[in-house]
């Protein structure tokens, strides 16, 4: 161990002769202001890249979700309406009329006993039951809470009346129009993007921070001249880098697989994504600012995210919720992000029209960051 303070051969190439480490401030490497930040960001990106779970949850999972839901809810041609006709006098007449109607291809009718027809209707096998009456009229049994039942009632009535000789006083015609942009997958992909930005920021920052705290790594960093702001900045920047990749992947996937049409500019989409990622970085930081155990922060993260998964219009429009709660829903950061992404991607809305949404995200982000820094526990 006599030579412990000499340089290794590969390092000698960089500097002059081996020298005692703490001697004169020779031509030793000198770090600039941003060396720490750069290395922290690099280390974070390396760690993420080497974590297969991260790759799956951040990149693969949203694509699988988009693929699965996109296929399950793809726009299909209108279904054939299944109807049951209660047997008895008049049943054959109803059947004959339906078969003679111009819409007969979209109707499937069966003659059954009263009990069987009702049972099938209850189980959802039939959308409508036709009950021929003694006076020769027909009675429809339908369920106003079942959309397909309501539709079938209109459709069957139309078919029966037309077949029986009704004349429409007004000439109308229809043209089929199912454009990309109005489909479920078009609604879904920006929602998944928003959700992913939230998930990844909450886990990538909140969880990662608490893990480092638990490992005493935060304390170890604190024992160096590292600037705390550099550390938080690097953690946040790593989120932005991942966000760029996520946006590219999901939109690319939508365009290639589902022929989605992206109307907004890439710059506008990325700007909205950046504001969203920064906002949730703040929320993630706040969620993790005190927790000492990863178990406790996991619960907190889910508690913060769950309401937004439900209310913020990821999988379905929040317009379905009562009007009274709409203002609260719109004040949630994920609602603002999803709305802004949808308007930008699907409608090509200019950023100037998104001021309110961007403001909501900015307020959440700034307040969260401020509180997180105030309450942050390093050791």
């Amino acid at each position, binding site marked *: *161990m006599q030579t*412990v*303070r*000499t*340089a*290794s051969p*590969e*390092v000698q190439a*960089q*500097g002059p002769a081996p020298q*005692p*480490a*703490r001697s004169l*401030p020779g031509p*030793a*490497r*000198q*770090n600039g202001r941003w*060396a*720490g930040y*750069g*290395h*922290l960001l*690099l*280390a974070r990106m*390396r*760690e993420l890249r*080497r*974590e297969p779970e991260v790759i799956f949850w951040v990149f693969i999972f949203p694509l699988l979700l988009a693929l699965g839901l996109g296929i399950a809810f793809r726009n299909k041609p209108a279904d054939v309406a299944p109807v049951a006709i209660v047997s008895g006098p008049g049943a054959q007449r109803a059947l004959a009329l339906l078969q003679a109607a111009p819409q007969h291809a979209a109707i499937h009718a069966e003659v059954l006993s009263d009990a069987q027809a009702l049972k099938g209707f209850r189980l959802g096998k039939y959308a409508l039951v036709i009950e021929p009456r003694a006076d020769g009229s027909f009675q429809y049994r339908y369920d106003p809470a079942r959309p397909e039942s309501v539709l079938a009632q209109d459709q069957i009535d139309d078919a029966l009346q037309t077949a029986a000789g009704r004349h429409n006083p007004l000439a109308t015609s229809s043209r089929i129009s199912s454009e990309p942009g109005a489909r479920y997958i078009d609604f879904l992909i920006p929602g998944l993007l928003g959700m992913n930005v939230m998930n990844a920021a909450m886990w990538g920052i909140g969880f990662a921070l608490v893990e480092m705290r638990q*490992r*005493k*790594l935060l*304390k*170890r*960093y*604190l*024992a*160096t*001249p*590292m600037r705390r702001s550099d550390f938080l900045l690097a953690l946040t920047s790593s989120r932005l880098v991942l966000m760029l990749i996520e946006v590219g992947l999901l939109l690319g996937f939508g365009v290639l697989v589902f022929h989605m049409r992206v109307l907004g500019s890439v710059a506008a989409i990325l700007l909205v994504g950046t504001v969203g990622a920064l906002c949730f970085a703040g929320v993630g930081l706040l969620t993790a600012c005190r927790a000492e155990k990863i178990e406790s922060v996991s619960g907190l993260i889910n508690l913060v995210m769950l309401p937004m998964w439900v209310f913020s219009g990821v999988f379905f429009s929040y317009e379905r919720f009562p009007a009274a709660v709409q203002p609260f829903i719109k004040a949630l950061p994920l609602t603002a992000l999803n709305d802004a992404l949808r308007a930008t991607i699907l409608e090509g809305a200019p950023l100037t029209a998104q001021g309110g949404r961007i403001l909501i995200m900015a307020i959440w982000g700034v307040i969260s960051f401020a509180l997180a820094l105030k309450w942050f526990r390093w*050791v």
Partner: protein
Amino acid sequence: MMAAAIECRGLRKTYDGKVEAVRGLDLEIQAGECFGLLGPNGAGKTTTIEILEGLLAPTAGQVTILGRTWQAHQRELRELLGISLQETRFSEKLSVRETLELFASFYRRPRPAGDVMQELELTEKAESWVGKLSGGQKQRLAVATALVGNPQILFLDEPTTGLDPQSRRQLWEIVRAFQRGGGTVLLTTHYMDEAQRLCDRIAIVDHGQIIALGTPAQLISRLGGHHVVEFATSGNDGAHQKELWRALPGVDSVHEDDGMLLLNVREPHQTIPALLAAVESQGSQLVHLTTRQASLEDVFVHLTGRHLRED
């Protein structure tokens, strides 16, 4: 006169207003010294070293490091100190080199990571992930992250706890090499052999206070004798006859430990024949007799009546 490398006065730390971890502690550690805080678990060693490291605020007392205070020169001091905490788990998916380069990037004038790896015999593991290192290698990496900033003072909190003998000796060499280069070292340990072999001076800490301070040799000589004669007799127990044993030639003090009688002795060759004669005259027999050099463990037992490690 030059200011001490590390100085603290009247250090106190109370947790939650009740638990007193440190109860009035004064220290003065000179530049170039290797100083050890020796004490059992829970004695307040870690609290003390973390206050000196500027990671914990004391409830009362002053700390001066290289003539600077934490309040006024935080960032400057961070550049001058290398710290290894009791237990840090570095990112498992970064390599040794990446970890060292990360830590080097925080300092204005770090040492090349390659140098530090070679010095700590980590070069072979440079590209291995931290998660794949052995306990000894991880501990060397922890010390390497402290050395890469080119510090003037090295703080090591329990650097060899849980390591095998070979890894411990390796770390001792690293500490000595740092000291040879002019560095100052403050370490905590509950291994008396570590303190004895490695440290120039030692403070024995118990219940948050320093109960003895000096070089290992001074502390041991304070026992009176440098040798310990340990024995047990059959028949009537010798404990009641402490005065008898105390009166034997060359005996400085007597105490009982776990059924054995321990004599601190200056001249074993005078004491032992007298001891044998005394045992025989009582009509009992020796069932155990050893002599050894007195150690810091004996000092601690002498001062507190307890052992450093109760395992």
